[in-house]
């Protein structure tokens, strides 16, 4: 790669610069690793040891916290729900965003400017800031406590960004490819299905990973919309473990570990895609 060539010729690095670099990096390293390591070993500590000394390593290592957390926290079905919400949302968002991006970039229309900025406004509104309106509307429509009541907002709140990502990619598909297909007699829907979707695989992965992550960590909407434990997700289940009149650090920590593992796997497997998603985020302007 090109960037290896110039590195060999390194400029003089002033000492204060190096020191500041290491100090800031140390802050992040300590803040990221220390709580995670602490969380890790504390989750294997019996409750009475945690209460007696928060910092110490476990004397009697135990997996009881995990067993309890899994059973009492019902993480089995919470995981299933989280997966349902994330997967369905991701599939719908990918399909709708690409089709919209295709229409916006490749079908000439005087409405495009209007619609594109209309959808762009969605980048400014989040679930948290409109939870009160959403809740009231969902209540009115009888959508609280239903899968649909979660899925529809999830799709809507993820679509703005996905359309933006998709448009930046679809725009770069050469017009000639599309024109050629049109001349062969294909209509736009066929072009979308046969040309745009297959060609967009890289951005589809990015949109999918990004949407999946956003859904996985979302908390406020499900918390507000679900009184029925059967549709709750991992994040909500986790927050509810902080019981009102009873407590237990041990299984709270074990549950935190259980709930965080999927994110760690997602990160390790799709680091590049996540980074691309986030880095394109700020370019929306």
């Amino acid at each position, binding site marked *: 790669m090109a*960037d290896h*060539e*110039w*590195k060999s*010729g*390194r*400029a*003089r690095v002033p000492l204060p*610069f*190096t020191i500041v670099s290491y100090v800031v990096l140390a802050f992040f*390293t300590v*803040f*990221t*690793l220390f*709580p995670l390591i602490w969380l890790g070993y504390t989750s294997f500590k019996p409750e009475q040891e945690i209460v007696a000394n*928060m910092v110490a390593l476990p004397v009697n290592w135990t997996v009881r916290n995990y067993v309890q957390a899994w059973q009492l926290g019902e993480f089995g079905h919470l995981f299933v729900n989280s997966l349902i919400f994330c997967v369905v949302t991701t599939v719908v968002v990918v399909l709708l*965003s690409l*089709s*919209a991006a295709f*229409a*916006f970039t490749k*079908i*000439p*229309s005087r*409405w495009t400017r209007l619609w594109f900025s*209309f*959808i762009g406004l969605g*980048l*400014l*509104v989040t679930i*948290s*800031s*409109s*939870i*009160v*309106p959403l809740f*009231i*509307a969902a209540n009115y429509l009888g959508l609280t406590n239903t899968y649909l009541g979660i899925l529809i*907002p999830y*799709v*809507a*709140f993820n679509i703005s960004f996905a*359309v933006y990502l998709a448009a930046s990619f679809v725009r770069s598909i050469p017009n000639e490819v599309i024109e050629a297909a049109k001349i062969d007699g294909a*209509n*736009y829907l066929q072009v979308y299905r046969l040309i745009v979707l297959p060609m967009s695989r890289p951005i589809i992965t990015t949109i999918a990973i990004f949407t999946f*992550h956003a859904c*996985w*960590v979302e*908390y406020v909407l499900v918390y*507000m919309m679900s009184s029925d434990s059967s549709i709750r997700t991992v994040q909500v289940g986790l*927050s509810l473990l902080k019981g009102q009149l009873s407590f237990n650090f041990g299984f709270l920590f074990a549950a935190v570990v259980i709930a965080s593992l999927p*994110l760690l796997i997602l990160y390790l497997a799709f680091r590049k895609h*996540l*980074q691309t998603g*986030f*880095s394109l*985020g*700020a370019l*929306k*302007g």
Partner: protein
Amino acid sequence: MVLAARSNRASYALLAGPAIVIYGLVIVVPVLYSLVLSFTDWAGMGVPNFVGFTNYVVMFSDPIFWWGLRNNGLVVLVSLIGQIPLGFFLAYVIYRRLVRHSGFFEAVIFFPALMSPVVVALLFGVVFAPSGLVAEMIGRATGNPMFSLTIFNTKNTAIIPYLIVLLWMYTGIYFIIFLANLQKTSPEMLEAAVLDGASEWNILKSLIVPQQIPVFLTSAIYAVAGSLKSFEILWIMTNGGPSYYSNVLGLYMIQNTFSFYKYGFGSAIAIVVILLSVFMILILSSIAARFSRRFEQGAT
């Protein structure tokens, strides 16, 4: 030709329609509905009474609203003078390979941004508690088992642990943004500068920073848009306490709406939050537009 145009329009509607409709119904309609409710005293049931601007007047005369706004302001500041510059600095350090193990540091900086707010809140709730992890460590280090961390208990400092968590958690996003943009810099230009004997400081100041100004500006918009919106972490970490000292507008909205069944009042807060963020973004965008115009003129 007419037929083709009509079929184009149909395709356009079919392809773009679903996204626009679902988005409009979920995001725009409830906000409009809330706007109407914000002029009523609706308590969640029964018939809403029209009360004019009462909710807004009550809100603007409530000290908790202003304190929440102040805390929101601090959150914006942490983004603008903390996360963005730090993110840039770190991206630069990693990009220029000024330290070893850049892969490791990249992970350590970026991973927090992916963690779930619930987990972060639960974890750091325990870390910063008066008798939590930090207190226990200080206590053990100073031999005072009674030590309790009360410096975050005053009105002015209550928000600080949250700000620290935000700084740690979201700097990674700006780091990734800057890293991606730095990687677009032409290596030849840097190579030439190095050959000319430019110091790292000069390279940063004269070459890199001017190039990244548009990214700084868009990041700032991103930061402002985000700052008014999220409160999940705070909700679980402090729930706005002690008293209302660490409250922010989003939490103020939730508490009023769902704890005291004041849907009309809660809607009014929601409208103010949305208006505030749109307003700030418009201002920032116009500043950004002016800046980048000047930058382009200056560059040519």
